[in-house]
């Protein structure tokens, strides 16, 4: 090929690449992509510039009303907020954005694989900045490991003091704590050996050694890495239904100690899967690492009838029925854990028409969604709250007792919910 032709072809190709996004944006005519299912957030769109505002701004300048002119039009340019928004929008509204992001992630992976090729590490980063890891066989994604040092000890001490205070100030309330030992806190995190401050099961040991003796506590323990693989999703941080049902049994036993006349335990008649559903969970979304998708299983459990209220309104909280009828999103990275089990809400109330007068306050996280209705079936009313919502974290326990006639409190979730983070602890 002649040099002239080669240069021309090269210029045309690069120029086509350079001009395509601009043509794409102009062709959208303001119809921007506003939602990203993959990222579960709103995308930034190009800001609008009004010629009318510009004219008014100029007029104000002419009139010597500079402050007003700034407010009407110019300030956003002077402060740089307009430029920053355009910069962000250019990235978030980019033509073929997700395939480009995937291309960048494959570059990350190629570099990471070559860095770790000759090393014995059982897991390595899933991408440059996701903060997630993948095991060497590429089977499981995992969160970064948790550290355990003086700061963590102090956080646990504060939480222990919180429990002591709750137990002392509310002697008539039955307290239970159920901890889910997740991989980052366990002895089986594949990279524990490389991190001198890895939690490695230490935080739980520390809590157990120092917790109030009269605090009813049980733990969903991991016994091996294989155990983790069996009980948690590959692509999502949550546990699967099989692990949840095991936990339900343990929690039932925990409750029974202080609730002898608890109704009989529910049993799963069958565990089935949603046919054809491939679940790429939150870790897959975050890292875009090509791990084999998960299957979404559910349990068939005979339950008494109940009503669910979300923030006081009667609601079909769970998406279970829709899923069983084949009504669910086919988007590759759709959040099926949330879709099937229900969205995290400020206050979820389960109401059962049973004889018991006991009402449960369940202080928990998204992990509880798989079994919270089974647990609720043993109480008259159950109120599920997540303290990461400000509406809940600012309330004292007495307020919940007063409002909902609470008799039992179950703190249930991963370590940040059960024994860490005094901020996320219920206030005495």
């Amino acid at each position, binding site marked *: 090929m002649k040099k002239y032709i080669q240069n021309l072809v*090269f210029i045309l190709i690069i120029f086509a690449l350079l001009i395509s996004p601009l043509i794409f944006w102009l062709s959208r005519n303001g119809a921007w992509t506003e939602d990203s299912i993959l*990222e579960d957030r709103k995308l930034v769109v190009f800001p609008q510039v009004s010629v009318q505002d510009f004219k008014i701004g100029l007029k104000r300048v002419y009139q010597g009303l500079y402050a007003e002119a700034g407010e009407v039009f110019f300030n956003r340019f*002077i402060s740089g907020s307009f430029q920053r928004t355009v910069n962000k929008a250019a990235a978030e509204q980019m033509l073929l954005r997700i395939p480009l992001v995937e291309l960048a992630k494959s570059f990350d992976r190629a570099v990471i694989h070559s860095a770790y090729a000759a090393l014995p590490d059982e897991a390595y980063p899933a991408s440059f900045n996701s903060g997630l890891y993948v095991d060497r066989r590429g089977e499981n994604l995992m969160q970064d490991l948790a550290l355990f040092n003086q700061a963590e000890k102090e956080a646990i001490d504060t939480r222990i003091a919180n429990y002591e205070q709750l137990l002392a100030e509310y002697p008539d309330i039955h307290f239970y704590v159920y901890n889910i030992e997740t991989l980052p806190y366990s002895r089986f995190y594949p990279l524990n050996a490389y991190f001198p401050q890895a939690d490695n099961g230490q935080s739980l040991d520390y809590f157990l050694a120092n917790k109030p003796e009269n605090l009813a506590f049980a733990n969903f323990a991991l016994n091996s890495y294989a155990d983790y693989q069996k009980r948690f999703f590959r692509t999502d941080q949550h546990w699967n239904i099989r692990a949840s049902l095991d936990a339900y049994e343990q929690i039932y036993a925990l409750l029974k100690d202080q609730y002898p006349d608890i109704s009989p335990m529910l049993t799963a008649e069958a565990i089935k899967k949603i046919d054809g559903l491939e679940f790429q969970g939150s870790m897959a979304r975050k890292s875009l690492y090509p791990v084999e998708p998960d299957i979404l299983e559910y349990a068939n459990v005979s339950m008494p009838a109940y009503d669910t209220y979300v923030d006081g309104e009667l609601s079909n909280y769970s998406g279970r029925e829709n899923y069983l009828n084949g009504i669910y999103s086919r988007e590759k990275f759709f959040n099926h854990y949330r879709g099937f089990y229900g969205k995290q809400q400020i206050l979820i109330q389960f109401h059962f028409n049973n004889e018991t007068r006991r009402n449960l306050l369940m202080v928990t996280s998204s992990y509880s969604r798989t079994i919270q209705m089974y647990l609720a079936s043993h109480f008259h009313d159950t109120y599920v709250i997540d303290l990461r919502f400000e509406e809940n974290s600012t309330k004292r326990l007495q307020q919940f007792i007063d409002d909902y006639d609470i008799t039992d409190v179950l703190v249930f979730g991963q370590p940040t919910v059960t024994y860490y983070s005094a901020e996320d602890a219920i206030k005495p």
Partner: protein
Amino acid sequence: MLFPSLVFLFIFFPIVLILYNLNRSAAYRNVILLLASLVFYTWGEPVYVFLLLLLILYNWAAGRWIDKKNAAGGDAGLLTGISIAVNLLPLVLLKAATTAQFNLPLLNALRTQFPNLRFPLGISFFTFSAISYLVDVNRGEIEAETNLLRLANYMAFFPKLLQGPITRFKDMQTDLASPRTNLDDIADGLRRFIIGLTKKVLIADNLAVVADKVFGLQGSDMAAGLAWYGLLAFAVQIYMDFSGYTDMAIGLARMLGFKLPENFNFPYLSRSIADFWRRWHMSLMNFFRTYIFMPLEIARRKLKHFRQQSNLLIVFLVTGFWHGITPNFILWGLYFGLISVLESSFLGRWLKKLPVFLQRVYALLLILIGWVFFKIEDVANWGPFFKALVGAGQPSGLNTARTLNILMYFPLLLLGIIASTPLFKEIYDRMRKNKVTSLVLDALLVGVFLLCTAVTVSGSYQAFLYSEF
């Protein structure tokens, strides 16, 4: 606006390129170029663009006054000096006002009056361009430019506006008078731009993570390996970043029909510190050589006040000040000044007797030590870092490449090290000579451009594990 930004790549750049090539007349092209440069600068500096415009106007007028005075047989030295001072005033004032360590009443008053005051992007580059222009006019090396548009384009030329290379007016004069482009220029300019983009986006930006994490430890709690990893990462990062930006500037300028000077010549292969400063940020050192060192040398011959060594020290001190007016930059400049003095006195002669390899090891070690001064702002943290470098730190094991999660960038460091030698350039040049491999190279460049875009776009990707909160 930065070259690797998506706004530049996919909005500004294609529009400018189209408009620029609609008409080949010099006047039209100069108008488009100036408008483009002003938009480019205003995007990042919507207020300081007025300072740029004022300085353009001032220097256009000052150049003509100087020329007239000289033509009339007078001495325009004082006028030139005043004009240089006028140019330097905003630079020095804003640099001092935006450096927290300086507590002068005037600066504090400025800070109170303008709480959001910050150092303008590219001010030293357009100031130096102006100074160079005025001095050259006064020396009679060039005639004052009567065409305001051309002078404005010389000072505000967007490819070099923010990070250079610093050019002299006479080097751009012909191109400004008739900016001509052909297909070869555009293609080669694009190729050079993509190479620079690759250096910046794929290597420098990733190695910055390593350097920032290691230097961010601010102590000796690290093994020697980690300290060296961080130091090498920074050395490669700063080179890839700056030379990448220069490549992009040279490539862009070429696409617009301008030839900008080279700024780097494989500086890590230097055989002495003097050699390093002939290969690193060459346009800045040329500027200092022409406008500070040479006048001082002439003064030395005339007045016998200065020795060459003290002139060297002055130049390097100014170099330090130019990078920043914090103690670390000043000491960094002084450090290279002292080594240069030693080399010009006796060390240089000794070095030449050593094998080339040892000369390079000597220079590289001193350059790397210099980067420690450059990177660590707090002078008190230099000692612990050097201790770590020589294995005398106190590594607790808490800070390792794994715990800092930077091990994964190691292949990019190796790639950057290789790219710091002429190896890739030689391969590139050889492949260019062959028709088939030249095509392969172009295909590779297209792919790399796509990858750079992908990496830049992926910076906006934010998926959260706990997105509900």
